[in-house]
């Protein structure tokens, strides 16, 4: 008699998993670089090509690395949030302009605003590969010792700032 209830029992367990699954994002690939040193780079800046954006110069402070591109729709969506966040001065945001053209990127920042202290120009995406970038936008939180502490995949929303980014940044700043 009890065996007739087995299909129902299996179904209930399955539904539990499916329900949990609704709250998750299946496309996210966890980064193996968390708690590891941020790969070093020294890239020409987007605005002034003679200036460099280098990881070595950023030791001693907590900072955000936001990977973006002018051809990326979702970057457009997260941009206002970043602008607003940059104004609060909570943490400096540096950009990594990924596989873009200089003119398009500069025009994009002019048109929509520039939340970045500086943006490194990664035209061929080599630095992106070193960081394990597979889509845009992605954002890294890097601490004063140059260690990656968090990676957020996808656009930053106010919720993400509230729940993930600001608490960690504050903790890292001590």
């Amino acid at each position, binding site marked *: *008699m009890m065996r*007739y*209830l087995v*299909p*129902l029992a299996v*179904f*209930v367990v*399955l*539904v539990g*998993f*499916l*329900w*949990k*699954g*609704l*709250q*998750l*994002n*299946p*496309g996210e*690939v*966890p980064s193996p670089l968390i708690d590891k040193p941020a790969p070093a780079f020294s890239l020409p800046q987007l605005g002034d090509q003679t200036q460099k954006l280098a990881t070595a110069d950023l030791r001693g402070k907590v900072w955000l690395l936001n990977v973006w591109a002018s051809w990326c729709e979702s970057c457009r969506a997260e941009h206002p949030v970043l602008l607003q966040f940059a104004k609060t001065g909570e943490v400096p945001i540096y950009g990594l302009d990924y596989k873009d053209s200089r003119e398009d990127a500069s025009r994009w920042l002019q048109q929509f605003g520039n939340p970045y202290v500086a943006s490194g120009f990664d035209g061929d995406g080599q630095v992106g590969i070193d960081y394990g970038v597979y889509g845009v936008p992605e954002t890294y939180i890097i601490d004063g010792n140059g260690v990656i502490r968090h990676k957020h995949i996808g656009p930053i929303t106010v919720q993400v700032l509230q729940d993930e980014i600001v608490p960690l940044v504050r903790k890292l700043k001590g």
Partner: protein
Amino acid sequence: MIPEIGHFALIVALCMALVQGTLPIIGAARGIPRWMALARPVAQGQFVFVVIAYACLTYAFIHSDFSVLYVAEHSNSALPLIYRIAGVWGGHEGSLLLWILMLVIWMLAVTVFSRHLPEEMVARVLGVMGLVAVGFLSFILFTSNPFERLLPAAPDGQDLNPLLQDPGLAIHPPMLYMGYVGFSVAFAFAIAALLGGKLDATWARWSRPWTTVAWMFLTCGIALGSWWSYYVLGWGGWWFWDPVENASFMPWLVGTALIHSLAVTEKRGSFKSWTVLLAIFAFSLSLLGTFLVRSGVLTSVHSFASDPKRGLFILIFLVIVVGSSLLLYAWRAPKVGLGGSFALISRESLLLANNVLFAVAAGSVLLGTLAPLLVDALVAVGVLGQSNKISVGAPYFNTVFVPIMVFAVFLMGVGPVAKWKKASVPELAVRIRWGGAVALIVAAIMPFILGHWSWLVSLGILMAFWIIVTVAQGMMERLRVHGDRPWSERLLSLPKSFLGMQLAHLGVAVFILGVTVIGGYENGKDVRMEVGDTVEVGGYTFRFDGVIDATGPNYEASRGIISVFKNGTPVMELNPEKRVYRVQRQPMTIAAIDGGFLRHLFVALGEPVGNGAWSVRVYYKPLVSWIWLGCVMMALGGLLAISDRRYRTLARKQRESLQEQSGTANVALPSAPVLTRAEVKS
């Protein structure tokens, strides 16, 4: 105005569905004839209103009404007319409307072709379908309304996804949905039987044609999807074990088990509770598929834009429908009884073994498809560490699926020649040894003829020829019976259900041959071609004659000119394209295919690499069309089987003459009463 009429029509349809889903079922339980009699007219009314709603949405598409949000998201003024009509189901909301349209078409069919069924059964079947309609109509009206307005109206639409701007879009989804949704009829019959407490061979006979037709549509739908992705996606792959593909494949596997199981229940009155469970599973998997594709829990090339809120709604619907049917099953199935007895080795047990294999196959595909989700969920609640993230792909599915099918194919040769009730193993061995020997010899030799030898190719050929020889043997035995008559007459006098089975099984053999040969002998090259360069593939010479610009109604293209030669003589010109659709600006690779019965030549442009040179991929694909030909044969086999006169009351005379003439022990008398009464020890 028209969109509002459509919206209103859906609301009316929902009200009718509510009536249809409640009163007839209560009427059947309480014996109220007037309530039971409501089922047919209300179902037909629902059909009318859903058609009105669908017509309104189509009208909005054809007239490019960009004040409707869904039209603005999925259409464009430059979109050719055929894609404006087919594009109605190009997005989530519209495809749901297609789903419900298919459901009401099936409902209408049930109202028309059910005159011979008792009123309570019709009431319950339509009632259950009405409840399903309530779920889907509510889902549409509350979360996915295709008639939502966009004000102010967009100046032009965002265009249909270029991947969908293809004739494949016009036929694949309707076929597929006819299949998916068709299993709701089998499901409704199963629930009706459980509710009524009467589950017997007659129920199986009524249920069988509906199930077979749904299965046929699903077979065609899946084959069309495979064919479509072959020439649109990737480099000519025909199956990717993508979650959305699996979502359609799982109901098919269970559906195949179901039609075999129904055969036994109809002929022998056995397997009743198992058949009912399969019917519930088949439709549950259809619903689960709907959930997986639209909720965002799985990544897929195919999935619709996902929204967890919608996902939650479908999940709740799934819980209600499947949960309550499994509860009903647990309550009523124990009382159903076991039916006729049969030996450990008999046609019944072999068919049951087939069912187990297909169920295991479906379970394995389900496991593989959901495993990443299961692991992610366990990571999220802290049971597992994050490094455990997995992804399951083709290697898993192929490794797991093929061995199961090897067993099933073996059974395909043994089952049809095994006797009902009790088959003797030595006798079976004698009957199949000739087939086995021939298949083994062919499998050993043929790979050498085709090119090179490999274990997998040999296995595939063994499986295919095992089927072919046993089918041929079976046919010969039956045809030999009336030696004095001409062959054509003998062939036509064989029962259609037998012929259908043989055709469908042959279709499986053809399919296996296609898969095996293309897997083992496909030949391709990825080369850099300057103008005038040639490359040789599969015995053909391909010469690159440059790339010119071309324009389509809503795209710009670079069109390659490839001249094909065989033994020096020009054979044809192929024109692969690289298109950029003006609105969505997504580059699309359109391969040029020369489709022959024995081989396809497949050419696709890569990228320009400077100086007028391009990277080009050229493939020689032997027997690839047999993959889809096999599926078509399977579907035709199903059609042949249900055209069997037994399902029509006029055919008794035919049946009588059959009984006189055939005399062979294995012709199962249609719907004959079981000649002993089986008692179940309690």
